């Protein structure tokens, strides 16, 4: 009992100290806009979450009066006491008029919570509820056409591999991650055949899913071990599909021991910095411009609910003012390889613009792992077929009717 009183006494003492401190200064601003950014991982993960955080800073720089409030690492392992609706409530109390929830893991909850705050605009990154019309009219979705970035990554890997074995460390299985693995594979096959003159059927391309967007010890597979396993198994290029940097970190360690290995990180512009010499480049999201556009629209009251899937600026995929998806070459590439990639990108650009002689890798015949037809001979995939990595995506009227996503035939790894 006395020990109990001592604990209480301490709490009271601290409480009195707190009351003496006075109220914190209010953060609400008279003009401008406050926007919230909710991150699934740490804001300095050199990957997915940092790309979003950086975009928030970009908006603050380019739009006077805009202020970001961010919360990092909202996931059930790091913050067991908090769910999305509680963070949203705090942000709305701080005066946020726009809240960006930047993970697939928030998609379901965002749609629920958006209904509670009709005066606040919600954007779920990478989701598609606005596409199906099952969201309230204060909810939109934004995603970048990372397929192109991944095709370039696959091409770079195919140009480089000496062992003919490329590995992909994937997060979890869903339509997004599946279409990105498929894109990487298509890019790799194309370049292996076209530029190296080798049989693409001899190219070994394997994927391992760790179970979540990043490592949660004891919950997911450890990506460090997965990547080490790839290299031990004969792969010499590892491509990352997860939010964090394990692939390039491990490759850097291996290279320091004298092994000939390379890595292609993901998501964040500066990701090659972990081990520049063995980096073949990084496909990255550049959310800044599309964020800026959205924040400005909300501020001016002209925002409309929409599903945005924005591609690179094909005139210059690394233009910081305009592009949404880019690819930065790494020091691991030779000048010849860079020239080949320049040509490959030019062809993709022509294909995306629908020009004569352009390249569209999502052209049939393509088959899924179970042998079913994805695209018939000569058939070009529709955006929805690409988005859902499913053949029947255009016929479906609700999300449940779409076939589960599948990897393409030839990829080693599980689709479910």
């Amino acid at each position, binding site marked *: 009992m006395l*020990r109990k009183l001592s604990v209480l006494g301490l709490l009271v003492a*601290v409480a009195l100290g*707190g009351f003496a401190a006075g109220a914190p200064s209010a953060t609400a601003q008279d003009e401008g806009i406050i926007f919230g950014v909710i991150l699934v991982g740490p804001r300095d993960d050199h990957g997915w979450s940092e790309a979003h955080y950086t975009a928030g800073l970009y908006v603050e720089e380019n739009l006077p009066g805009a202020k970001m409030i961010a919360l990092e690492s909202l996931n059930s392992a790091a913050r067991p*006491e908090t769910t999305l609706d509680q963070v949203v409530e705090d942000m709305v109390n701080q005066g946020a008029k726009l809240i960006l929830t930047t993970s697939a893991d928030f998609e379901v909850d965002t749609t629920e919570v958006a209904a509670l705050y009709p005066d606040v605009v919600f954007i779920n990154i990478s989701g598609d509820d606005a596409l199906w019309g099952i969201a309230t009219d204060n909810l939109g979705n934004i995603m970048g056409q990372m397929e192109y970035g991944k095709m370039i990554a696959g091409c770079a890997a195919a140009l480089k591999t000496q062992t003919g074995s490329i590995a992909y460390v994937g997060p979890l299985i869903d339509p997004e991650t599946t279409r990105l693995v498929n894109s990487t594979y298509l890019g790799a096959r194309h370049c292996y055949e076209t530029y190296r003159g080798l049989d693409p059927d001899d190219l070994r391309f394997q994927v391992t899913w760790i179970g979540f967007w990043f490592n949660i010890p004891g919950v997911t597979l450890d990506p460090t071990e997965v990547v080490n396993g790839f290299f031990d198994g004969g792969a010499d290029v590892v491509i990352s599909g997860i939010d964090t940097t394990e692939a390039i970190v491990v490759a850097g360690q291996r290279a320091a021991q004298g092994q000939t290995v390379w890595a292609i990180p993901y998501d964040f512009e500066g990701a090659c910095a972990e081990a520049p010499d063995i980096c073949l480049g990084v496909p990255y999201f550049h959310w800044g411009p599309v964020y800026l556009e959205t924040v400005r629209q909300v501020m001016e009251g002209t925002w409309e609910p929409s599903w945005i899937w924005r591609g690179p600026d094909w005139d210059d995929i690394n233009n910081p003012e305009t592009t949404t998806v880019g690819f930065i070459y790494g020091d691991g590439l030779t000048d010849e390889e860079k020239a080949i990639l320049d040509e490959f990108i030019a062809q993709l650009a022509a294909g995306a613009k629908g020009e004569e002689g352009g390249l569209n890798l999502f052209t049939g015949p393509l088959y899924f792992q179970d042998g079913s037809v994805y695209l018939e001979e000569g058939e070009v995939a529709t955006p929805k077929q690409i988005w859902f990595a499913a053949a029947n995506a255009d016929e479906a009227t609700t999300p449940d009717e779409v076939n589960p996503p599948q990897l393409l035939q030839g990829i080693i790894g599980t689709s*479910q």
Partner: protein
Amino acid sequence: MTSIPEERTYPPRPPAMVRPSRSLLWRWVVDLIPTLITPFIGIAAALGLVVLILEWQGADPRLAWQFLYDGTLATAAERADLMSYWMPLAITAFGLVLTYNAGLWNIGVEGQIIAGAIGATWAARLFAEGEGWRAQITPLGHGWVLLLCFVFAAGAGGLWALLVALLKTRGGVNEIFGGVALNFIIQTFNMYLVSNGGPWQPVGSRATETAAFPEVARLSSYGGFRHLSLTPIYITTAAFILLVLIMYVSRWGLQLRAMGKNLRSAFLLGVHTERNVLMAMMLCGMMAGLAGSFRVLGPYVTRAKLTANPSGGIGFLAILVVLLAAMSALLTPFVSFAFAMLSKGGQKIESGFQWSDPPINLDRSLVRVLQSGIVLMVVLAFGVRNRYFPPRSAQAAVDEDEEVART
């Protein structure tokens, strides 16, 4: 095992409820004075450390307290949220008081919470959604579905704990190792259920979780607060009363304490140690399982589902709680409240500083450092006291306890 020693004469059995004599009580009170000061020194040391870190980061510690208070106790909504986080932590800690007093280091409690969450989810799917083999002939009412969820949760948690106990008593596997292994297994099983198109992940879903349960399998919210429900409070209160009765009134509680002091002696003195190990672990697992059900049954839709990590480490947090409470049943509610407040308030401190002008970025793990630091400092303070200023009556008290245990 050792054989029971030869016939020995026991003193006549006293009445079931043994109350300490006045002199014993007095000695206990005197002994408590250093016990009172010791944790205070530990807590003060840990808080001092955190204040130093805050100052070093350029954050005003008094402002930190303000954010903590505003984010946990200042408004009714915050208090309701705090309550919903406190209940599962508290009931888990209650279960641990039983096992820790019996000398059973139930590290597996984290897995038992997850087992409970899976059990509750299974019941919700069977009886509310009619998945799998259809258990419902006519739709069940709200109360029945919830009751079944709790029964399944307590059953799953209890069985998972029983497995640890059987591994210990029959397999010779220390409960710490068994617990760690079973934690890992159940966590992996949970991930299998809800990720990568697992059997409980809805088709087409991109979130690593089940679909939200239908209304009938959610706790009813109270007072208009999204996360507050009275049912967990009732259940946790009942668990607390049960715990106090066991620890302070029943003979079984005395047996557990005796086992904690010296398992072998307790066995030699006629305590059914194996049976008690199984029972204590199972009861603890049932309470942890109920905690797991509180974590997945809502009331609000963002919590009414099985997620990738339904426990979120509250099992490990509860271990710290019980250590800090020196395994005392009466202290546990207060310590668990303080820890719930620190956990929830920690996020408010972090966002409070980060959202102010100019922003101050604190490390997110500061609160975990504080929580662990407090426990470490308090345990250290006790260790230093026992090493350099041993309480005079300590040995006598042990003798007394064993005397009591023999009854």
